[in-house]
């Protein structure tokens, strides 16, 4: 056992956050303000996600933490260790085995199921801020469903690049009501947000929580003549050969060599364990 | 068409010791369709004041100014605007236009505000400018830089481009050469022939004698000095 209260936060704080989460689930896509606490890590390292995870964790949970899809990066490792130490919960890297998954910038490739909770770390929860910096005004715009500005943002994209160049944090409309920032996940992941698991979004510095109950309708904004596309590099994973998973570009030498590999490390490992091979893996084997 | 009864006017100068200057009292004037009446009287007798009162540019002190069924002395701004648009034309001595607007558009504007298609309005304006011998290269320029005589002709074209049933002409032939003076007098006669009621100020006695059926000395409208 540890000297920390279960999952670091005191019980009153967890109650406060749970109330915010319940409200957020009741009004999908609406940003609920909450009294974000100082956490033993800097802002931008997932303080919002950590507080939300702490509020929903129970001793029986099995936790997975990913950063850009990977279980083994600094951020993921630190947060996983944080909860091992303060809550003593079991951890895993396997998506299917986890009951609570905290994520930064990705949705796992393995479809989530009922009973799982996906917690997102959110840097900037306000999708309208890009064009309207006044918080008083953006709140009014949400209240009155004045979302023309979101399309101005996409218009600017097309005017400048010939297509909608926004490739992450792609704005979505929830159940035909609130426009929401999905956190900086790649737009490839947007269609996956209509899922069976509960999705919670925590922004620590901005002190906002929002949520999507299971099977909530999530529509990516677009134009009739420039429809939304969940794009990704048009190559298979160099290691496991997956053609339908989101890929990271990895620079392999100083001569411009590169390869594309699954960003979801768990997904890639399981595929390789099942015998799938990508082009680079085959070369190595040869 | 133009029916003035018991018209009076005075100016109150608030900033000059609240001086009250009475310039007109009990003025009566009637001008029927097809008639052209010349206002006469010494300089300062109130010819221009009467014209401005009829046009609604000066606020009448008392009495009535009926033009085509509207009493200008009592009408709301909206009624006067409609009257000026459709019924009452005014050729002043001064040209007041938005700088930069080409002459042909300045002349066509009275037709455009009445809803005439642009092409038709512009061709009418051009025909009239040609008749007034304004060189075609000037049509696409703003009249603000024109000579006095040229501006005068632009003003006249603006006043005659729409067949107003009532017309006010303030020195329409001043600063014009004999040829253009003749054109303007023809225009006035044509307006009379189509039934326009005209009130004018003409210093040019010969022109006055030719187009005006009647002269009214406005000195008679001056208040009896105390």
């Amino acid at each position, binding site marked *: 056992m540890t000297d920390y209260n279960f999952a670091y936060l005191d019980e009153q704080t967890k109650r406060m956050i749970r109330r915010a989460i319940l409200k957020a689930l009741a009004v999908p896509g609406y940003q609920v303000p909450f009294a974000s606490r100082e956490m033993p890590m800097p802002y931008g390292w997932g303080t919002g996600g950590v507080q939300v995870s702490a509020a929903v964790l129970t001793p029986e949970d099995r936790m997975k933490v990913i950063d850009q899809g990977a279980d083994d990066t600094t951020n993921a490792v630190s947060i996983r260790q944080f909860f091992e130490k303060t809550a003593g919960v079991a951890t895993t890297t396997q998506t299917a085995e986890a009951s609570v998954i905290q994520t930064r910038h990705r949705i796992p490739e393995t479809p989530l199921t009922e009973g799982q909770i996906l917690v997102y770390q959110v840097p900037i929860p306000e999708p309208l801020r890009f064009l309207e910096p006044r918080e008083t005004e953006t709140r009014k715009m949400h209240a*009155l469903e004045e979302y*023309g500005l979101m399309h101005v943002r996409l*218009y600017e994209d097309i005017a400048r690049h010939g297509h909608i160049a926004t490739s992450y944090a792609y704005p979505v409309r929830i159940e035909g009501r609130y426009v929401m920032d999905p956190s900086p996940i790649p737009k490839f992941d947007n269609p996956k947000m209509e899922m069976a698991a509960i999705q919670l979004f925590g922004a620590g510095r901005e002190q906002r929580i929002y949520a999507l109950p299971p099977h909530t309708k999530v529509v990516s904004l677009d134009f009739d003549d420039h429809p939304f596309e969940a794009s990704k590099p048009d190559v298979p994973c160099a290691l496991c050969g997956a053609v339908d998973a989101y890929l990271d570009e990895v620079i392999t030498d100083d001569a411009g060599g590169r390869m594309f590999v699954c960003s979801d490390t768990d997904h890639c490992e399981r595929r390789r364990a099942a015998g799938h091979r990508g082009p680079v893996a085959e070369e190595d084997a040869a | 068409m133009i029916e003035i009864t018991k018209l009076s006017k005075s100016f109150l100068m*608030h900033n000059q010791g609240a001086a009250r200057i009475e310039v007109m009292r009990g003025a009566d004037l009637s001008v029927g369709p097809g008639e052209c009446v010349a206002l006469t009287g010494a300089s300062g007798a109130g010819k221009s004041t009467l014209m401005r009162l009829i046009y609604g*540019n000066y*606020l009448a002190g008392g009495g009535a100014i009926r033009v085509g069924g509207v009493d200008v002395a009592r009408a709301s701004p909206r009624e006067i605007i409609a009257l000026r648009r459709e019924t009452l034309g005014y050729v002043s001595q001064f040209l*007041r236009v938005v700088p930069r607007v080409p002459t042909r558009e300045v002349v066509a504007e009275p037709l455009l505000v009445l809803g005439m298609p642009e092409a038709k309005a512009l061709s009418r304006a051009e025909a009239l400018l040609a008749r007034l011998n304004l060189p075609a290269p000037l049509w696409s320029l703003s009249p603000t830089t024109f000579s006095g005589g040229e501006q005068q002709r632009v003003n006249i074209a603006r006043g005659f481009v729409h067949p107003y049933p009532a017309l006010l002409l303030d020195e329409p032939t001043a600063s014009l050469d004999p040829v253009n003076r003749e054109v303007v007098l023809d225009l006035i006669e044509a307006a009379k022939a189509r039934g326009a009621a005209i009130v004018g100020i003409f210093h040019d006695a010969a022109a006055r004698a030719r187009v005006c059926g009647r002269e009214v000395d406005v000195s008679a409208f001056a208040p009896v000095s105390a």
Partner: protein
Amino acid sequence: MTPLLSVSGLSKHYGAQIGCADVSFDLFPGEVMGIVGESGSGKSTLLSCLAGHLVPDSGAVIYDTRAEGPRDVITMSEPERRMLGRTDWAFVHQNPRDGLRMAVSAGGNVGERLMATGARHYGDIRAAAEDWLGRVEIDPRRIDDRPATFSGGMQQRLQIARNLVTGPRLVFMDEPTGGLDVSVQARLLDLLRGLVRQMGLSAVIVTHDLAVVRLLADRLMVMKGGFVVEAGLTDQVLDDPQHGYTQLLVSSVLQV
């Protein structure tokens, strides 16, 4: 004929200070009304109250809405009022930076009101923006440039295009030619006159420039200390002013 805008007994105080007091007038379709007065005369307060940017202490602002006929704008719900503000009304600020999104391209600025009212076809929005840039005499090739790269006069014209793209019926203008070079002012005035005529716009224009109202406004209200001291036909008020203050105002203009 129903007035487009019917204002009665409009008053706004800032504490003990009078903003505007007991203002009443009717504005009919196609009419342009000028409001003149010196700084602090209440003309901008009045404009803000009319446009719904400020809540007056008392009075009514009845607007003849397209869908439901005359409605009091002041007691209307905020969403309805804001909807009016981006569809049937337009507001042209003195400083184009207050009325434009400086970080957004000219095309995006013009297209915003279309997108705000549900336009979802990029090609159509862009075509409308190009058309409007042409109408306000901005080279459509500059559609993707930001307003920051435009001159003051162009910015003001862009602001007008951005406002008129939804075909509003009522335009509020606060010193639309203030801060512009004289030559640019003339061009803007010409443009506004043409648009007012072609679109049948009604407008309320606040300015301290008597030359501007003479060329643009059918009617004129003169304000002093929050009160309307004189109102009437524009050229009549300017050429035969009745109130002492108006006489002072008119006689104070420098002749060129």
